[in-house]
């Protein structure tokens, strides 16, 4: 098993043979797909495709399970804010008025469109984080000729996040060992007392920053160095023909999507079979 940004993946996964640049391109481009798709069923198809990719990459689908309650809560909030809290629109078609609040078909439709845009975007990110290691992000940036200083700062920020969390755990345990515990207390009390965690954490972060700077200097690193770095990390990844093909497919897919959307009017609300069917059902039910 190898550790990725979001979990662990078996050594046998094909995804290790994919160049990091392809993964980053996939994230950047495929996460844009839903923005150009209004037809709900096409975004649902994209979700299924992403789940298929997770399965063939041998990512444990338990990762998705974690997001199911989040997805349900998010869906509920979107639906409520579009319908119950969506305001009054006499020009829209009413499908029902529970407790005197008019619920419009157009608002339900818009909520569905938004929700089914967000889900594949999140799933694309989950796929990326589940199949990518921190090191691969650095490799992808370096392959894209992004300056080392920028790449390195991003990489160290990712690392620092983990360190701050670990330090926070240590500080909290130390405070608890001395009898300080906010468990069972009210939220305002917890917020007020959070300062007790933040001060040592801040001091610890400053010390870590000093130690880290010393380590960088001791290893001969200098922001203003003229030494040409050999980019060893890139020698660990080879851009093969299937990587080029994957990039081509991703970009061609995006181009085809744009052409279909703006050239032929596909993937629009009017083009959606599912929304047609649902609207028909809801409005005929309301009329009856």
């Amino acid at each position, binding site marked *: 098993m*190898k550790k990725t940004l979001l979990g662990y993946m078996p050594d046998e996964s094909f995804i290790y043979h994919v160049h990091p640049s392809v993964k980053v391109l996939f994230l950047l481009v495929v996460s844009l797909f839903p923005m150009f798709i209004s037809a709900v069923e096409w975004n649902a198809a994209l979700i299924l495709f992403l789940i298929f990719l997770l399965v063939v990459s041998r990512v444990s689908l338990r990762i998705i399970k974690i997001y199911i309650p989040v997805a349900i809560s998010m869906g509920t909030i979107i639906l409520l804010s579009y319908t119950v809290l969506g305001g009054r629109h006499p020009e829209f078609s009413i499908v029902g008025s529970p407790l005197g609040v008019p619920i419009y078909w157009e608002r339900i439709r818009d909520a569905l469109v938004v929700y089914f845009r967000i889900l594949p975007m999140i799933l694309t990110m989950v796929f990326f984080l589940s199949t990518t290691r921190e090191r691969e992000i650095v490799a992808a940036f370096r392959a894209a000729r992004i300056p080392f200083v920028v790449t390195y700062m991003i990489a160290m920020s990712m*690392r620092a996040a983990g360190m701050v969390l670990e330090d926070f755990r240590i500080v909290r345990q130390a405070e608890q060992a001395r009898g300080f515990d906010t468990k069972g207390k009210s939220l305002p009390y917890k917020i007020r007392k959070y300062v007790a965690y933040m001060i040592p954490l801040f001091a610890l972060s400053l010390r870590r920053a000093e130690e*880290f700077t010393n*380590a960088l200097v*001791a*290893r001969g*690193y200098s922001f203003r160095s003229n030494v040409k770095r050999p980019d*060893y990390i890139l020698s660990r990844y080879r851009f093969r023909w299937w990587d080029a093909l994957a990039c081509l497919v991703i970009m061609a897919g995006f181009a085809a999507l744009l052409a279909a959307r703006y050239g032929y009017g596909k993937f629009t609300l009017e083009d959606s079979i599912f929304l047609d069917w649902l609207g028909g059902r809801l409005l005929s039910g309301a009329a009856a």
Partner: protein
Amino acid sequence: MNHHAVEIIDYTWKYLHGTGEAVSGLNLTVEAGECIGLIGSNGSGKTTLVNSIDGLIPGQYHGIKTGEVRVFGTEVEEYKRGELQREVGLVFSDPEAQFTAMTVEDELVFGMENLGLSLKEIQVRLDWACELADLGSMLEKPPYEISGGQKQRVALAAVLAMQPKLLILDEPTAMLDPISRARVFDVLARLRKERDITMILIEHTLEHIIPLVDRMVLLGEGKVLHQAPTREFFDDLTLLREQGVLPPSVVGFSGWLRESGRVDGPSALSIEEAADQARQARGGE
């Protein structure tokens, strides 16, 4: 011209907001190829001294400096940025704090990349450092997810891969359990045997550094209080105890035998030598 590896002349350093001088009129010379053990109580100036040799002082800290700190014949402040680190490698006590990369492999390579080595040379040195520190099986792991002993071996190997002429270790095993500590010292012993490297080793566990070092230096209040070849160093146990240095049991036992007049000669530094002295003492009785 044959220079000393390190030559410190009347060196004084005071941190900007410090209450007193961290190092005060210190004089010390380390010959090329020599390995010295630097000991002293907390606050005696050990870390300030090694940071001064590696250029972290005055580069990274504000303060007042007088005197000279010469490394391979050149004052540290005269080295160009990054040049001194080609000559001097520094291993810190907290392995986690010195990690600069996200896999063990990248960690080992980082310093070499900073030196601008070719990929071929990097690979050769990487293989050597991995073999020396026994890290071959963990190259793809994140350095912060391995055990404390492994972390310190990674930190050590990362510095060794840069092949510095002078290696400084600032309490490299302070955070390790006895087994991990022994493994780090095994690596250092192998290094001493295989490479003609100059070493300055700060360590509190004296039983580990005694077999390794040629000379011991005792620091106190920012000054060199006592220095001598390792065996001679432990002849005057009273001075060491006065300075808060607790000699290893073997040395203490040997000292007791000598002080009580049961044996003559120099201090024993190993169990075998102490056993010989004990037999000698029993024969005398």
